[in-house]
């Protein structure tokens, strides 16, 4: 599983915020024509049928957290088809073209695959106020733009562009663009008076089911250990495997990786300790690393035996409280909802169900009373 953080080395720095998102509205993004979610809590669990928009919601939140960082146009989780770039690069005789980018990455981001629309992600944050992120596609040629971080003007022969406009009380208006230059190289630049040195409003991490970066994992653990929180991660991981005696990041294999001591003669790479352990490690590391921010987890129950799910939720609850992290998780599992409720109680968990019908998108947010009634009487919530 990958932890994709907007705080990657080339991203703007995220300041640690307090407070949390209270509501969000997403329009024209993937299967979400217009979805409004109110009553967000500290730990939010989203249920709903396949294609109801659960994963798209998490991707939209990543988009918002990126605050217009244009590199998101080429990377997961926002650019869901980003794997095609690696595939093309690994295929002799193939090269990434504007068509590849437009058709595989960008067009699927727009609702109904309609590039004429405008993606909008707007939110109300308890401390930061109104936040908004708009994304539009345009086909431009011979456009003169001011590239702020290069200190001057430049004329670029652009083809398809994806333009971002982020607005908040903290940053003002930030504009950026993503495009392929005349050498078919992905470019992502801030434009106008925008400065890449601005701070992201809050850090974020998207904990997905895909494997990606040993480097990313090792870097995140290193950051957590630098903050002297390594033992917290270790203690939480013992929920999954009580044999675990230590974890560390090192480069003995030639690349930075996380290794664990489960009592063998040698350390074991995290990826070899089972999906559940790897998934838990990345989740708990993110909860500590993304202090004051938001962590998004898709299909949170995957990889965990049912017997450990309640304790996993307890650990999530403790860490989210201690580190001020707002959690957005999705699930298909009734058992997972029950475990979360058992661990967090009706005050700690907010359950939402997304629905996608002909009439449009809807979010049903359960009051604590309704959630109690549903679980006590075995009524369906998914």
């Amino acid at each position, binding site marked *: 599983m990958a932890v994709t953080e907007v705080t990657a080395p080339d991203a703007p720095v995220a300041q640690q915020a307090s407070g949390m998102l209270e509501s969000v509205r997403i329009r024209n993004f993937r299967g979400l024509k217009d979805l409004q979610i109110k009553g967000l809590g500290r730990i939010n669990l989203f249920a709903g*049928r396949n294609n109801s928009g659960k994963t798209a919601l998490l991707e939209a939140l990543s988009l918002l957290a990126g605050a217009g960082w244009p590199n998101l146009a080429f990377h997961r989780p926002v650019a869901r088809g980003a794997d095609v770039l690696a595939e093309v690069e690994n295929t002799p005789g193939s090269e990434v073209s504007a068509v590849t980018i437009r058709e595989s990455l960008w067009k699927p981001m727009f609702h109904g695959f309609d590039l004429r629309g405008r993606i909008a992600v707007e939110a109300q944050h308890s401390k930061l106020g109104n936040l908004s992120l708009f994304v539009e596609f345009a086909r431009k040629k011979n456009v003169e733009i001011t590239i702020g971080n290069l200190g001057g003007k430049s004329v670029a022969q652009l083809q398809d562009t994806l333009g971002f406009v982020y607005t908040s009380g903290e940053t003002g208006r930030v504009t950026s663009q993503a495009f392929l230059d005349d050498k078919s190289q992905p470019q992502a630049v801030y434009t106008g008076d925008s400065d890449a040195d601005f701070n992201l409003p809050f850090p974020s991490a998207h904990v997905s089911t895909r494997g990606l970066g040993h480097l990313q994992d090792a870097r995140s653990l290193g950051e957590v250990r630098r903050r002297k929180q390594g033992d917290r991660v270790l203690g939480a991981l013992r929920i999954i495997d009580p044999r675990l005696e230590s974890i560390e990041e090192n480069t003995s294999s030639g690349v930075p990786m996380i290794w664990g001591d489960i009592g063998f003669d040698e350390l074991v790479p995290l990826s070899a300790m089972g999906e559940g352990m790897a998934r838990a490690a990345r989740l708990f590391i993110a909860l500590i690393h993304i202090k004051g921010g938001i962590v998004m987890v898709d299909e949170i129950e995957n990889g965990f035996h049912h017997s450990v799910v309640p304790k996993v939720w307890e650990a999530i609850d403790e860490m989210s409280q201690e580190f001020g992290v707002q959690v957005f998780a999705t699930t298909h599992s*009734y058992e997972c909802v029950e475990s979360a409720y058992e661990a967090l109680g009706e005050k700690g968990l907010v359950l939402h*169900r997304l*629905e996608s019908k002909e009439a449009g998108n809807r979010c*049903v947010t*359960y*009051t604590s*009373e*309704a*959630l*109690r*009634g*549903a679980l*006590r*009487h*075995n*009524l*369906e*919530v*998914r």
Partner: protein
Amino acid sequence: MPRPDGITLPVQLVVEGNDQRNFLGKFMERMSLTGVQIQNFGGVTELRAFLAALANEPEFDDVVERLGIVRDAETNAEGAFESVQHSLRNAGLPIPERPEEFAKGQPAVSVLILPGGGRAGMLETLVCESFAGDPVDDCIDEFFECIDKGSIRNPDKARVFAYLTTTSGPHHSVGVAAQQGQWDLDHPAFDAVRRFLDELASGAQTAGTLGARSK
């Protein structure tokens, strides 16, 4: 715990406890009513949370056309009805103005406060009325006279339990006894229940005659 069934039928009957569930299930079988999904809300203190959760169920808006709620009056039928109204309001559901009258809306909602007619009492009150005049009932009167009648906290329940002890294969539950065929469900004492269920089940408009009498 088994996974939830979810909303499966357009007519929902929500009842207070397993006794009512078993009793009314048998009653509908006697009336040849089909297409009604019975759910047990567990107890009067649970109704508010139950209705809030039921109204939130994934298929509720699309499937449910009629909703009936049944609970005991206990000592105060008017208070019991008002309590149900509060729970309906909390769940954002249509609110009938009087018992046994449908509130129009989506879904249409009706409430039956047993024993009906605005009286205090419960399901057992109706059951007692159904065997009143039976020679066994006279014996029960004598039995109650023999013991300290004032010590009986719930005379109707006690009378039903006493009656059941005289039957073959007795079971203490009035609902299970209904499943066993112990009660005369055609008795006029149950007319209010019969009217309520008939109106509830017959009003659904779903194609395929769901919620109608089976032929």
